[in-house]
């Protein structure tokens, strides 16, 4: 019942650094003498980096064209409420050479791609090319799972259904004639999305895989006809589709539409007048959204973004100012360790 406590057990605790809580330890003390030089150094470094970032960002050119057409003077005004297929064009001029490679973005505002239900309304297995999910799409796609006659929709879900379907073409006015600027639709989506995450079912021709399914209601044509010219840009691996399927984080977003990489324009868009022709389909009026086209080039750190440069300069200067403040404090109050 009760254990014997007779035998004299070696009760003496171990005398090790660990048990005696005397492990060797580094005990840094944040005092002014360390922090002031550190702040000065970091501040200087930050200001340097900030200036570099700011310059890099400043060099990036940006051309933004709003084509929502809510102003009656706007060429796209007519398309705003048109239900027919509608095309409008805008002209703009580039004063200096727009250094290449130039990236062609479309932008939407007030558009909440980041809503939970909207974002979840897709079936990754379907998009991975799993035919089982063609017949029986995930219920997360509701109400875009089945059409009114209970035929499964492929690709299902609100996200796919609402795919952006304005198309653009850009022409350069050279000597009074319109010269089409070739747009490259490759490489606009993530490599991993294109190669791994999204897959067409391994059925040829692709159309057969879609037997017994319906296209999303808002789509003018089914998935297997997204790009009939290129089998590697068709179906679920259509790059426009992939770009759309990567949901934007915030309600005002830009998505990459094309890259201008063609021989004539590989160095950029030369100065001159350009015409942007828009096939206007996508309705944004109902939610006060705006649509725009953005031309931009990028540096090693991405597109035009002054934030980083400014932030580095500000924080760097703050560090320097703070170190001066601390120096004053240090001089006035001396070290605590002096008493």
């Amino acid at each position, binding site marked *: *019942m009760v*254990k014997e*406590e*007779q035998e004299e057990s070696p*009760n003496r*605790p171990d*005398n*090790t*650094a660990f*048990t*005696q*809580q005397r*492990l060797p*330890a*580094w*005990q840094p003390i*944040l*005092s*002014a003498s360390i922090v002031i030089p550190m*702040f000065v150094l970091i501040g200087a470094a930050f200001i340097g980096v900030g200036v570099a970032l700011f310059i890099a960002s400043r060099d990036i050119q940006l051309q933004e064209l709003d084509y929502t057409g809510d102003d009656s003077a706007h060429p796209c005004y007519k398309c705003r409420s048109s239900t027919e297929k509608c095309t409008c064009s805008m002209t703009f001029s580039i004063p200096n050479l727009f250094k290449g490679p130039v990236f062609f*973005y479309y932008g939407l505002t007030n*558009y*909440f791609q*980041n*809503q*939970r*239900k909207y974002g979840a309304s897709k079936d*990754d297995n379907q998009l*991975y090319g799993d035919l089982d999910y063609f017949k029986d799409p995930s219920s997360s796609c*509701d109400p*875009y799972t089945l059409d009114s006659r209970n035929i499964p929709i492929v690709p299902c879900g*609100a996200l796919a259904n*609402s795919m952006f379907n304005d198309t653009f073409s850009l022409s350069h006015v050279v000597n009074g004639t319109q010269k089409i600027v070739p747009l490259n639709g490759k*490489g*606009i989506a*993530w490599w991993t999305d294109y190669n*791994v995450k999204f897959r067409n079912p391994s059925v040829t021709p692709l159309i057969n895989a879609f037997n017994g399914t319906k296209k999303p209601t808002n789509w003018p044509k089914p998935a297997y006809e997204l790009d009939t010219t290129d089998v590697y840009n068709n179906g679920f691996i259509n790059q426009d589709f992939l770009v759309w399927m*990567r*949901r*934007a*984080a*915030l309600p005002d977003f*830009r998505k990459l539409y094309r890259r201008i990489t063609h021989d004539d324009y590989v160095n950029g868009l030369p100065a001159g007048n350009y015409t942007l022709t828009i096939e206007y389909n996508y309705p944004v009026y*109902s*939610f*006060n959204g705006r649509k725009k086209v953005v031309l*931009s080039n*990028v*540096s090693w*750190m*991405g*597109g035009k973004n002054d934030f*980083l440069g400014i*932030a580095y300069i500000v*924080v760097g200067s703050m560090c320097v100012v703070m170190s001066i403040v*601390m120096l004053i*404090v240090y001089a006035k*109050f001396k070290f*605590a*360790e002096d008493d």
Partner: protein
Amino acid sequence: SWLWLHQCGFDPPHQSDTRTVYVANRFPEHGHYIPQRFADNRIISSKYTIWNFVPKNLFEQFRRIANFYFLIIFLVQLMIDTPTSPVTSGLPLFFVITVTAIKQGYEDWLRHKADNEVNGAPVFVVRSGSLVQTRSKNIRVGDIVRVAKDETFPADLVLLSSDRADGTCHITTASLDGETNLKTHFSVPETSVCQSVSQLEALHAVVECQQPEADLYRFVGRVTITQQGEEIVRPLGPENLLLRGARLKNTKEIFGVAVYTGMESKMALNYKCKSQKRSAVEKSMNSFLIIYLVILLSEAILSTILKYAWQSEDKWNEPFYNQKTEQERNSSPILQFISDFLAFLVLYNFIIPISLYVTVEMQKFLGSFFIGWDMDLYHEESNQKAQVNTSDLNEELGQVEYLFTDKTGTLTENEMQFRECSINGIKYREMNGKLVPEGMTGDSPSGSSPQLVIHINNHVKSVPFFHRVSVQITEELLFLKAVSLCHTVQISYNKSESWLGGDPFSHTNSFSFSHMEYYASSPDEKALVEGTKRIGVAFTGCSGDTMEINTFGKSEKYKLLHVLEFDPNRRRMSVILQTPSGGKVIFTKGAESAVLPFATTGEIEKTRLHVDEFALKGLRTLVVACRHFSPEEYIAVNKRLTFARTALQRREEKLQQAFAYIENNLHVLGATGVEDKLQDKVPETIEVLRLAGIKVWVLTGDKHETAVSVSLSCGHFHRTMNILELLQQRSDNECAEQLRRLARRIKEDHVIQHGLVVDGASLSLALREHEKLFMEVCKSCSAVLCCRMAPLQKAKVVRLLKTSPEKPITLAVGDGANDVSMIQEAHVGIGIMGKEGRQAVRNSDYAIARFKFLAKLLLVHGHFYYIRIATLVQYFFYKNVCFITPQFLYQFFCLFSQQTLYDSVYLTLYNICFTSLPILVYSLFEQLVHPDILQAKPGLYRDISKNSLLSFWTFLYWTALGFTHAFAFFFGSYLLMGEDTSLMSNGQMFGNWTFGTLVFTVMVITVTLKLALETQFWTWMNHFVTWGSIAFYFIFSLFYGGIIWPFLHTQDMYFVFVQLLSCGSAWFAIVIIVLTCLFPEVMKKVLYRHLCPTSTQKSQVITSRKAVRFTVVNIRSMTDCCHCGNLLNNGIHFCNVLQSLREMLRVALGFVE
């Protein structure tokens, strides 16, 4: 030995007040007999069976509020459509529940094993005329059990007979109450003759006794023996009862009848639940949790309301691209509202961290090992290290404001030494085994004034020439005899090994004095008997009812007629003896206040004076008295005693009356003064504790003069202190008047320090009506001494302080059973492993061997634990605010659609993996100041008093910091990405998950580095977990994002992290946001350190300087590095590194082993 913590409230239903036990279960053949049902002898300390483990354990775990909260969240997630999958809260909950269940299951399995061992132990029982071996669990009430030497008793037995003729046996109850002395237990004469099975077979006896109760020292019963048709009734008391768990000693075998079995035995009833104490940190943690719950609820409500505000506009409610299902459109708006609210609740629920509880528990459990491991708390002489009974209160050790300490055995060694006595009005000192009257020196035993130098050895036989001297000699002799006879001391005749070992009775014939050792439950008694032995009157043995003393070589036998046992109310004990000449005499000894009022003859006044003088010297005093009975008187006395002893009802009361009747008309013989040495370093410890801002109160049962003198000698009272007295107050008014007077005196004269002495009686008066006034006086005194305190009064004083408006943290320290109530009452109870048994240690929260260890326990361990846990708690709240607030902010940008910012896996792992280890390691190893400095500068203890690191303002600071950082993470990332430009050099865009991952990455790094900033003590483990956590986060994310997970239905995170890291802007953003968050922290620390440094911070500087000096010394002693000593500036660092590397290696190797 294992504790049955879980046998709480075991209370079997009783039909009647007494139970009737038929010995050997021989029930009466005629007459009505209602069989009583008794518990079997199975001990069940286990909590669960295989069948009820799962439901019972789950039920108990979910009774904890935190687990229940997470269960609710989990159920909500299961029931409604919520933003995160049920796995995110289910998995951690499952983990916590499983780990706890496994731990408890294992502990229960151990208990089962121990139970089976105990219940299956072989025992011998007399059944149908022979000795049968059976298992312990089969013993029934009424069985006659045989127990052999050194076996433990398998049930509570009434002793029937032993192998000795007088039917006595010796036992030790060390495992029950820790008392290691031998105790003699008796059997009634009628049964003690039944020494064989056949004789027992013929025995017809019935035991009637009270129903089981937990008090180990109370047993009331009687046995009725039928002999030749005649019924003989004998009383039974605790001296007849052998308790389960006690061990038979010095006796070959005994027979006993089982009266209480199994869970009804006194031992089983004594394993009670300890009262649950909660620390101040836990209390503030709980109130912080409530604040967070409020934050959570208000965030959820706000979000829900805003969601509906947005949705009132149709274009946001149901834009063309995100239509609702029919079901959603048709569902009732109220249900929709509730489900939205719940969904937000789920989304933000991580603000209350499940891992907080797990981490706190782990921290407490693991951290408490350091107390037991501490060499400085190890007592070499007694081979005892500090013991932690509960790890829940570690941090409370750093918060103590009032310390209540017992005197005897706590401040003193409890090693009594007979020093002085007063006989018949003359004071004597003991010197080298001789009694020397006052004023004489021991060097001249037969010196110039022979009439006063009474050297008994020489004079007792020779005829004294002065009559006065001869009277004095007679008185002296009587006094010494009284002292050597009036006690309950046991003798063990052992040779060399421990007394538990040999069989002393095998060589009884050859015993001599030198082999004799006294064992007594009271150290005073032992000291007295030893003292008289040294002088020449030795108690040599007690066999049966005969006490034998050896008076200067002459053996005398006294028949022990009655023992009037000591009890704390009477504060005296007596023996009634028959002298060799046949006279009946009673010897009484006890506290002077308990004896002198009943004395009528002898030198009462002188003795009183001497007692006071002894007390002033710090001696413990007892007064000895006697009374001779005439034969008629004795008959009356005997009758009264026997009547009271056999009473079944109200026996105690009747006994008290009988005692009061007998112990009267006494003749005072003298008084004794026993010295109790102060423990080592007590004054220093008290001084240090006082410097640490702890008020020390001494609570003692001793008389006021003794207490004051000990108080002075241990530095509790100073000579310069103005001692105020509240003593011997008889009435309410008088007491109030005195209190007011004292309060006035304190006010008039507040420069000088005051000390207060209160006695028990005045205290109870003061507490009854004038609690407030009393408290006021007490608080303005720097030292308070309470004397003449009963155990419950000690607890009352503690409670009074505890419940006073400031709610100070109290600590009680004591060593004896009388301190248990105080130890249990105080916030922290500390037991001293002393000589008065283990009861205090068992009931304490921490146990240490010596009073001086308190200094390190409080100043170092308390300080460490407190800063560790306080930072732990604050940091947990901080990091969870950081975690959840960006989610909340994100709702403003996603139409309050409950979109999570982070992936579910990140949500789940943030608290479990990414940020859990650094804080755990911090909370185990952090040291703000070097332990030596903490002990050298007790004032540092004040820096953390009043729960300062967990005050509302610090909490607010941490919470605000959490919010600020969360805003920085979110809006920093927003500014970077929200300008809707590409961050990649290939012009591609990021999505929402990349945004969330950026916020998350910044957060993990910032939160980890924030802790790094807080860390003062960087061991290799801190480095490992801090940098390891960040590295782990990166490695895990790369791995998690690098695979298409087959069982997940969305692959949202695929390559998100790689894409994020592949762009330079993200790196720049991470660096700038992290540093922007931390720079103000660094600034704040530096400015505070220089503008208003706390004493803790000042000492840190000393620490670091000292560390350098230490290193230098060490370097010099290291042969391979000695030249470094000269090249201080360059060398120190290098050597430092070398040395720490070495140390690290050593520790690492130790770990591997």
